[in-house]
């Protein structure tokens, strides 16, 4: 059994930032990461980030991962890669599996769960055909492993991920036939939409996939227009030859570990599904279990990093490591989050977070 002060689960943007800030405050930190490398989704994000300079705006995600890697190395942070957290038990014990062969137990003073989110899928006929896959998977193949994932793609979903992955597919030389979205408006940032539009890719709002077509792999996609109540309009079907259909219909928080630990969860659609309730110090209903990033509400990575810093600061405080400028740090980080969320793009987040607020006394 390994005893440690703070155990961070997940080495994505939220987990890494929480580890850095907690360690800066004086806590000794162990980070568990199921992948062979740190960075989470940052390592496949070849585009520049939005936000302001505190969140490394205008820097590419993949480079932010390197910046965080260098910072991690400067502090008392032990990284355990290829290590999947399996459970959080009533007595505060955490179990994990190293390289799918060695089980381990941890007894931490506090835990920050920063497990991120996973892609949602959509039900339609033949959605199990090879060639139908998540946009995130395609982005990983392309940007992490350098594999050209397709020749002709139909993208389903005009949120930021659908738009960005479409653009990156084109950078890799893949032909993007069109981008569909069931909603009547583009969900992602319109600057991203304009980037693909001027490459000649049509964005078809109020459209969805009717079925995937192919014998043993995808050869075409049948699309259909939707009315304002999302009903398919007969006669508007169109068959588009393609070898890949990318599904990018949103993300769902990964909060199974929190559920197992007994943290109060609530279904909050604006945050992506079931999410933990949390205090202003990012603590769940179970004392000493903190959360940060997409685990507690799907949002941009810039916000996940700031949340990580706050959770790290507050978890360290719980462990008795209180930096002299705690209040200044805490309020400055919250100001950053407010700035990121205060515009129209953050409206759903603001609504969602208002419902996820945990009142400790209640």
């Amino acid at each position, binding site marked *: 059994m390994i005893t440690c002060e703070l155990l961070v689960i997940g080495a994505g943007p939220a987990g890494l930032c929480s580890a850095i800030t907690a360690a800066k405050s004086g806590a000794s930190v162990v980070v568990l990461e199921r992948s062979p490398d740190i960075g989470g989704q940052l390592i496949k994000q070849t585009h520049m980030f*939005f*936000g302001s300079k505190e969140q490394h705006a205008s820097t590419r995600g993949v480079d932010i991962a390197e910046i965080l890697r260098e910072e991690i190395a400067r502090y008392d942070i032990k990284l355990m890669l290829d290590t999947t957290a399996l459970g959080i038990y009533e007595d505060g014990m955490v179990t994990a599996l190293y390289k799918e062969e060695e089980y381990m137990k941890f007894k931490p003073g506090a835990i920050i769960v920063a497990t991120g989110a996973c892609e949602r899928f959509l039900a339609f006929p033949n959605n199990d055909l090879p060639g139908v896959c998540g946009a995130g998977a395609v982005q990983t193949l392309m940007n992490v492993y350098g594999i050209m994932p397709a020749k002709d793609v139909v993208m389903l979903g005009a949120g930021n991920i659908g738009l960005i992955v479409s653009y990156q597919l084109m950078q890799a030389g893949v032909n993007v036939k069109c981008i569909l979205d069931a909603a009547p408006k583009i969900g992602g940032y*319109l600057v991203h939409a*304009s980037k693909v539009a001027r490459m000649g890719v049509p*964005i078809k709002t109020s459209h969805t996939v009717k079925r995937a077509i192919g014998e043993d792999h995808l050869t075409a996609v049948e699309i259909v227009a939707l009315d304002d109540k999302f009903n398919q309009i007969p006669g508007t079907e169109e068959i588009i030859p393609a070898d890949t259909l990318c599904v990018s219909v949103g993300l769902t928080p990964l909060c199974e570990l929190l559920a197992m630990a007994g943290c109060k969860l609530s279904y909050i659609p604006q945050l992506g599904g079931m999410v933990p309730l949390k205090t202003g110090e990012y603590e769940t209903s179970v004392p000493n279990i903190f959360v940060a990033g997409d685990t507690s509400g799907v949002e941009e990575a810039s916000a996940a990093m700031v949340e990580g810093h706050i959770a790290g600061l507050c978890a360290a405080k719980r462990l008795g490591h209180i930096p002299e400028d705690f209040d200044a740090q805490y309020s400055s980080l919250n100001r950053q989050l407010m700035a990121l969320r205060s*515009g129209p793009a953050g409206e759903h987040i603001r609504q969602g977070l208002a419902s996820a607020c945990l009142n400790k006394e209640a």
Partner: protein
Amino acid sequence: MFEKTGIASPEMVLEKFPPLSRINKGKVAVLECYRRIPCNPCETACPFGAIEIGEDINNMPILHADKCSGCGICLTRCPGLAIMIVDTSASEEYAELTLPYEFRPLPKKGDTVFALSRSGEFVCEALVLSALNPKSFDRTPAVRIRVPKKHLYDVRNIALIDKEG
């Protein structure tokens, strides 16, 4: 329509351009940021204080064209690739546009390329005046092209001419 297609209308585009009197004097930035999102690297990047976003990073950038030198630093820093540099001072006939272009291969000086509209349609042929990709641009190359002046407001992208047809 913009919300459905991502293609800005000619009126929206015109509104973002500095007046012709300014463009006729030389290089100046066009900030095609049409919706409020939390983002301010253009303001941070500008060495002349010509781009103003202010306290709320969700504000849309305002260009103070009198302070803008057309240096193009903002063009390479904008995460939305929403900035280009325009200039009609060089000749009576042509406008020069500098566009971010993150594709390979990069065109070379002297090449002829297709100039494309905001919807990716062919507008005209264009001569490449330069294609710069120094380290400081951080992998967002800037391609300067020359197009007939009448297409100043229409061109926003390029495509290389496939020599094999």
